[in-house]
């Protein structure tokens, strides 16, 4: 073997072999941790209180495990005909403990957000945004809802995130929430 590997080369090879474990000499036994810095919305609640008094109607969309996995729990909205309601939208991130109130963040940055309410069919109910941002553009966390005849349909609530581009219309920005509630007026 003597002339198989002459000394410098042998030393080189041996030192490289000796070095091999050092390349990976750290432990990788750590576990993933919850995504605490990841702001998400798990829950949308729409609370409708009749202006004439009475018990509020509450409907919510909840997806506690986030996107995918177990399907979200989507409630149905049951309203009385010919009634006016005061509506309040609440957004929560319930993966955090305690839950983060995203609607408070939306209110704080009202000039970057717009909630859009789209009943289908259009005569299902009328939703009017009653709150405004510092630029006097509508926001939509607070609403007035008026029902007329008995119908069934859906109500789509969209939260548009429009930093630096809000102009009162739907178009600019991107969508952070888009939930659809089955709705019955009877």
């Amino acid at each position, binding site marked *: 073997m003597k002339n198989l590997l002459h*000394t410098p080369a042998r030393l080189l090879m041996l030192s*490289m072999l000796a*070095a091999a474990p050092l390349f990976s000499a750290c432990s990788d036994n750590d*576990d993933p941790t919850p*995504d605490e810095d990841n*702001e998400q919305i798990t829950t949308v609640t729409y609370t409708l209180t009749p202006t004439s008094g009475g018990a509020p109607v509450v409907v919510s969309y909840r997806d506690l495990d986030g996107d995918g996995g177990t399907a979200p729990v989507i409630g149905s909205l049951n309203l009385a005909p010919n009634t006016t309601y005061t509506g309040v939208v609440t957004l929560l991130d319930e993966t955090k403990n305690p839950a983060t109130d995203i609607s408070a963040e939306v209110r704080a940055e009202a000039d970057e957000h717009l909630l859009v309410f789209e009943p289908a069919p259009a005569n299902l109910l009328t939703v009017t945004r009653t709150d405004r941002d510092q630029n006097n553009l509508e926001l939509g966390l607070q609403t007035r809802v008026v029902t007329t005849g008995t119908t069934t349909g859906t109500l789509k609530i969209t939260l548009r995130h429009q930093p630096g581009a809000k102009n009162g219309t739907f178009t600019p920005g*991107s969508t952070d929430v888009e939930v659809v509630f089955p709705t019955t007026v009877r």
Partner: protein
Amino acid sequence: MRIQFPGCPEPTWLWLGLVLVLGMAGSWQPARAQAPAEACALSLSGRVADHESRADLPGATVVLLETQQATQTDNAGNFHFHLCPGLYHVRVTFVGYEPETTELRVERAVVRDFRLHPNAVMLRGANIRGERVTAPVSQPTATLSGQELQQTRGEALGEALQRIAGVTAIQTGPSIFKPMIHGLHSNRLAILNNGVRQEGQQWGQEHGPEIDPFSAARLTVVKGAASVRYGSDAIGGVVLVEPKPLRDSAGTGAELHLVGMSNNGMGAASGMLEGNLRRLPAFSWRVQGTARRAGTMRAPGYYLRNSGFSEHSFSAAAGWRTDGYGFDVFYSQFRTQLGILPAAEVGNPSDLLRAIARPRPLETGGFSYAINRAYQQVRHDLGRITGFVRTGSVGRLSATLSQQLDYRDEYDRNRPRNNNLAARNLPELSYTNRTSIAELLWEHRTWRNFTGSVGLAGTYQANRYAPGSRQFIPFYTSTIGGVFWIERWQKDKWLLEAGARLDRRDLQVRRGDRDANGAFFVDRSRFQYTTPAASLGATFDPTAHLALNLAAGLTQRAPAANERFSDGVHNAQYELGYDLVPGNGALVPETALNVGLTATWHNNPRLNGEITLYQTRIIDFIYQVPILPPVVTIRGALISRQYQQTNAMLRGVDLTGSYQLAPRWLLTAKGSVLRARDTRADEWQILMPADRAEVAVRYDVADRPGARLSQRFVQLGGSAVARQTRVPANYAARDYKNPPAGYALLGLQAGTMLHWGRLPLEVSVAGSNLLNHRYRDYLNRYRYFADEMGRNVTLRVRVPLAF
């Protein structure tokens, strides 16, 4: 960069330094004079001349491929070697001539003359002494080097590779090109950067290879499976990014590249400085660095907002090389920041459909170099030590150790609403991938026409995401051990090659998840696979102008972590790994069988070319398919893409040819056609390259002796890509938009060598999409939102310097 591996911070590099010092100390003794065995004094000599004029060619390079010995012909074109008996491959190269490789049996003194054919096609890159044969010889390969490579300077790696027939890329705007060979990409392609398998984050289609193409002197593509040598991921092929070997003649040299592009204001500068010490001829070194910066790209009629990028990279290498042994160390760092088109950064399907419905993006704006959210920030570090020992009468033993760190941060379009979080400006996705690879290779000496090598390879990889960031790919560690053996038999006009490999992979996954009540838990799983690979190849050279090659291979590839466990929303699509689909078991390895036949006509005075016919059958082909019903998320109902297994059949033809129309007029053409079927569902495969062809006419202006300009050329070319009509049935349910129409583009380029004092400057100007044609390409992920780049003029200057 946010992540540090616990217990694994910077000291890795300290260790590397220590190892280096140890290695140097170990080898810094005067090499003992090795008495050559008497048998190893056989003379091989000859003369190199021009085939037509029979004029001597002084300065031609003659290399013995087996021993790496190299010499240059003297003033009379003569060369001379002293050799052990055996079978050798002698390669003779000279600038402006077709290289020639011949097999020689040396049993007594041999005299062999070479007559080289002038290369009218192109001036190939300066040939390199001590060139290593890295690509397998019995497989179709294509190379970009010299002037051809020079014409791609300033482009991304995946963009440059598209010059080769059969190679395309999955593109994301102007900056991200993920190479695709014969319709296969990502986990089915191995990219070797300076001999080390590039290990980044292959899971995203918008993740380009983290490599500075300026560092390469040659780009080689091996078409078809090369899994025996490069590991089971090389089902589709291999890309070899090879720098120039370290300088082996005393002196200092430098090279400077400058590139400017008109369309997006891209500027690139790359410099290289290398040297070899006269006092210490075994020691060579090189440093190299590149900066590339681009602003907003312009489609015909509007700007693509936030499409700029900024890239910085450097590398350093030092080597010690003697006849008997050698080693070198290499370190490189690549950093890039890439803007993402706002229209392409959506998390909601209605937004996506609205963006797609617009003929041009909503937000266009003007020209700017600024890169705003959304953007990607990537850094890739590579360290490598490699050494070889010529084991006297037995062969050559080499070892390579490398470590790679890949950091990928992806910033969403909007910062978090929470002011405290927003102020920290954290990336929403933040991944770190660390890979250590070791390889030991023994190449035995020629024995009865047999040459071959046996190798051991090990890979350890850990993938993590930053605490607090979003999971998409889970934590995983993957350990792979492999052993391979390749033998080659060469006699007369025949070369046969056979190889086999066995890999064992251990994949441990730790995945964070939430139960139905939102409680966080960690799901641990572990998988082990043993996968074989085998290859057979035959090359037959009936004449000096024709070569035929038949290659066949079998590869089994174990599924990667992303194919099993990806989970989350990426680009408004919900992606789910196979194992997470309720009711699915574990993904099984896929098995590929491929056959390729290549015929090459070469060194003919007029017509030269190459045709490759191939077929790849993949059983249990792992691919992504949209699944109904869509997944309902708080942002609406998202198309869900899940990994599935099917059987696939890919068949295709690549054609490259040139015809010398007249002494200074050369016509070149290339084209590729691929037909990819899902044989289980009996339909076409999705996202496969459309048929394409390219034709160019080149005129080389005659040189006048002593003139300031030489090697002048003008080239007019056209390229055409057809509409991809071979797509799955019911396409509307599979994709948001039908494949775009076909297109044809016109390009013109001109170049010259400008002798400025003693400096030979290589200058060229190239215009692409000259007619400012509006088009979209099926393989560009921006095709849903925006057109491709409009007219662009690129100026390239290369300055070689010698001190």
